[in-house]
């Protein structure tokens, strides 16, 4: 989780930051909740923890996806080392040429 937030500080782009932070923080909080379940056994507290895991696993990727789409639609520039921009290419195009640098 700390490494995910370090990625939030250090990486050069919005999309890289989203990629680094969302996965690590979701996994960190879910493992803390699994620790609660293991420590408390079969109790109301572990039931709430299980429900919280389910909600985190549903909502966190959804909001990350929506944020990435909103960031793309608001025309944030990609960083200089970006290799390919699949979202800009035509989806009907079979062999997309990724050799040319994206704008």
């Amino acid at each position, binding site marked *: *989780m*700390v490494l*995910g*937030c*370090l990625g*939030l*500080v250090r990486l050069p782009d*919005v999309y890289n*930051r*989203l990629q680094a*932070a*969302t996965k690590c*923080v*979701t996994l*960190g*909080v879910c493992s*803390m*909740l699994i*620790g*609660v379940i293991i*420590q408390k056994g079969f109790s*109301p*507290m572990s039931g*709430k*923890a299980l*429900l*919280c895991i389910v*909600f*985190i696993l549903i*909502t*966190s990727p*959804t*909001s*990350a996806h*929506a*944020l990435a*789409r*909103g*960031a793309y*639609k*608001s025309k*944030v520039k990609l960083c200089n080392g970006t290799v390919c921009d699949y979202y800009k290419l035509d989806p009907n195009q079979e062999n997309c040429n990724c050799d040319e640098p994206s704008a």
Partner: protein
Amino acid sequence: MFYDILFLFALIASVSMCLYRIGMGPTPPDRGVAIDILGTVMVGFCVLSALKTGNDFYLDVALAWTLISFIGGISLAKFLEGRRYDD
């Protein structure tokens, strides 16, 4: 006891890095991403205090915080996308 202090400092480091990105983010989507991550890290704080005090209601707080953070993230994304809130 030692691991509690370790987890507490890890969470404090995560929150301070999120706050740095909220304050210094060059573009608005950076701030949106950092706010979303901060909501998830605060769930970790709620879990830690629930384990230390043994109270149930901190997990209720964590549950509600997850859903509120989800609504906040979705509305920020719609705002960034340039649409209004009613479509």
